[in-house]
């Protein structure tokens, strides 16, 4: 005759597990404390790291082509005007960015004609990156207008105006109102020159930009280079870098035809700014490594707590099996103890991390005494004030990590409890 199936005894297992944790209260609290501190540090430091990376990314993409940029595939390497976007692709891109699916995420967009040329004055000549822009669209995109130190940013009615970096101004011995000439290859592949007048001087804090960038009105650029309304790229700045994939996918879908015929490509910031991506990835890896080590140590603490508890209760597990629990159910009691310990302490730790993150949401943390105020790398100006960032996905990720670690740390003690020899366990002396 087959025996009746064994009930799972969920309630019994839970009661025993919880009471055993309470029975070893001091040991449970000590282990839980390590987990609480670990969860707290993990969440807060990742919130801080995410906030810092978001600032880097925001700064980096604004100084370059945006979170997402649309350009011809050849343009990335050639930087030549003949590799500009056709007018219909520019229009399609701008229409796509206004679609309800993604428009809420778009903070700014700018269609630019960016070329490399030579700026010259009576004092000499310097290579320059000339960017023809619509001033109203560009101002919220690159925020170069905020970095003015003399004069003003471009205005819609400007014609021959130039907004020039401080480094270039000094190299060419220019000042506000000075005239200078830029020369570059035009749409007809001839060398063409344009006279400009300095209306504003900026200092971005990034030597590369300050020594080469010149903003000119879009109309002036089109007339000078014979490119009409064509642009070399359309850049988009988003509210959150986490939305990059969704916006890029939408643009790829809308621009499927020009992409297929080789007239356009959609680049995410990771592709258009690989150095910045590498910096973020390396910093993330460092964090993962440090917290991996920290949690491995905490994990051993949990193994130790649960295993010691198992070893001290050898006879008790024998009794439970003698009374009718299966070996598997005995192991589950130990697993539930470990999981309960990690889940409760993990949730408390993450909650404390959230509270700390929330506390610093407003003003952030000022690291200027550590890193100074003018640190730059890879086209990014590092803001010494870091504001932590809250992401639901990060909280879920951290909770899942803590829970999986708790399960892994409890697995061995659970196995030990499940594989005891019941009759031998009874001989165990207290």
């Amino acid at each position, binding site marked *: 005759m087959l*025996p009746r199936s064994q009930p799972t005894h969920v309630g019994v297992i839970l009661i025993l597990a919880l009471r055993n944790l309470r029975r070893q209260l001091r040991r449970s609290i000590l282990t839980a404390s390590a987990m609480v501190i670990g969860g707290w540090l993990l969440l807060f430091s990742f919130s801080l790291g995410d906030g810092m990376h978001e600032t880097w990314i925001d700064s980096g993409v604004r100084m370059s082509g945006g979170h997402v940029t649309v350009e011809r595939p050849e343009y990335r390497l050639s930087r030549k005007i003949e590799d500009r976007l056709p007018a219909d692709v520019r229009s399609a891109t701008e229409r796509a960015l206004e679609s309800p699916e993604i428009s809420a995420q778009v903070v700014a967009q700018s269609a630019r004609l960016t070329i490399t040329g030579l700026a010259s004055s009576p004092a000499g000549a310097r290579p320059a990156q000339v960017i023809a822009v619509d001033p109203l669209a560009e101002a919220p995109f690159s925020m170069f207008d905020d970095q003015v130190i003399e004069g003003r940013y471009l205005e819609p009615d400007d014609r021959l105006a130039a907004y020039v970096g401080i480094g270039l101004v000094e190299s060419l011995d220019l000042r506000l109102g000075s005239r200078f000439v830029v020369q570059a290859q035009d749409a007809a592949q001839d060398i063409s020159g344009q006279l400009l007048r300095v209306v504003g001087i900026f200092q971005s804090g990034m030597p590369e930009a300050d020594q080469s960038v010149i903003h000119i009105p879009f109309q002036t650029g089109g007339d000078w280079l014979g490119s009409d309304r064509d642009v070399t790229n359309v850049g988009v700045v988003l509210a959150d870098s986490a939305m990059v994939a969704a916006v890029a996918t939408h643009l790829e879908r809308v621009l499927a035809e020009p992409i297929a015929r080789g007239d356009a490509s959609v680049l995410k910031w990771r592709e258009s700014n690989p150095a910045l991506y590498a910096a973020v990835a390396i910093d993330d890896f460092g964090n993962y490594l440090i917290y991996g080590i920290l949690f491995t140590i905490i994990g051993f603490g949990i193994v130790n707590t649960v295993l010691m508890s198992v070893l001290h209760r050898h006879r*008790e597990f024998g009794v439970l099996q003698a009374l009718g*629990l299966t070996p598997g159910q005995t192991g589950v009691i130990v697993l539930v103890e470990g999981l309960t310990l990690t889940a409760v302490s993990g949730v408390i730790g993450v909650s404390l991390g959230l509270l700390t993150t929330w506390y610093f949401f407003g003003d952030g943390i000022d690291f200027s005494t550590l890193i100074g105020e003018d640190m730059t790398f890879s086209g990014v100006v590092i803001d010494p004030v870091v504001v932590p960032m809250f992401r639901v996905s990060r909280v879920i990720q951290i909770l899942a990590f803590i829970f999986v670690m708790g399960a892994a740390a409890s697995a061995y003690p659970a196995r030990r409890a499940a594989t005891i020899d019941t009759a031998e366990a009874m001989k165990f002396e207290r």
Partner: protein
Amino acid sequence: MTDTYSAAVRTNGLWKVFQQEAEEVTAVRDVSLTIDRGEFTALAGPSGSGKTTLLNVIGGLTRPTRGDVLVAGREVSAMSNQELARLRLDEVGFIFQAYNLLPVLTAMENAEFPMLLQGIGAEERQARVRALFERTGMSGLEDRRPGKLSGGQQQRVAVIRAVASKPALVLADEPTANLDSASSEALLDMMSELNRDLGVTFVFATHDGHVMERSRRVVQMVDGSIDADEIRT
């Protein structure tokens, strides 16, 4: 003659051999034994005579090396771990020398535990346990944890736990060994009454002469074998 199904336990040609390093130690040697329902039987013998091992094999805590064991008509030898667990839950009650109550449960919860595993409702569990507490003079101690009970009281709770789920037999390994003579006497009285009034089958492993005196059948074991089997009137 006792048939297989009226017997609480039947063993036939039972052996249990332990491997200790390179040496084989025979703890139970060719034991054939039938214990009917309602018996009050002692397995007697000196330390190392195999009585605890025989109890463990009957209770499904240890598998026999060879031979057959039937508990309440069910063949134990070939059962899986799950089937053995179910057999212990439904058919066997255990009483241990060291009481072995679960320290995190109260006396009442300890006594209810096997019935909780069996899925018996709270009302019936509590009714059965309260009746046994009252019958054994343990009323008022239901909410105490084992650490707050004397040895004799703990062993009474262990007996209640063993019989409350109405198993086919109760296996008791040296149940009086840790008790003083008064507690020991009280415990034997309690088990005798449960045997007489409720028909609970008790099998003791003991070398306590007093337990043997109170038993109606004494199976003497020497070196793993049955040396004598005496039924007292």
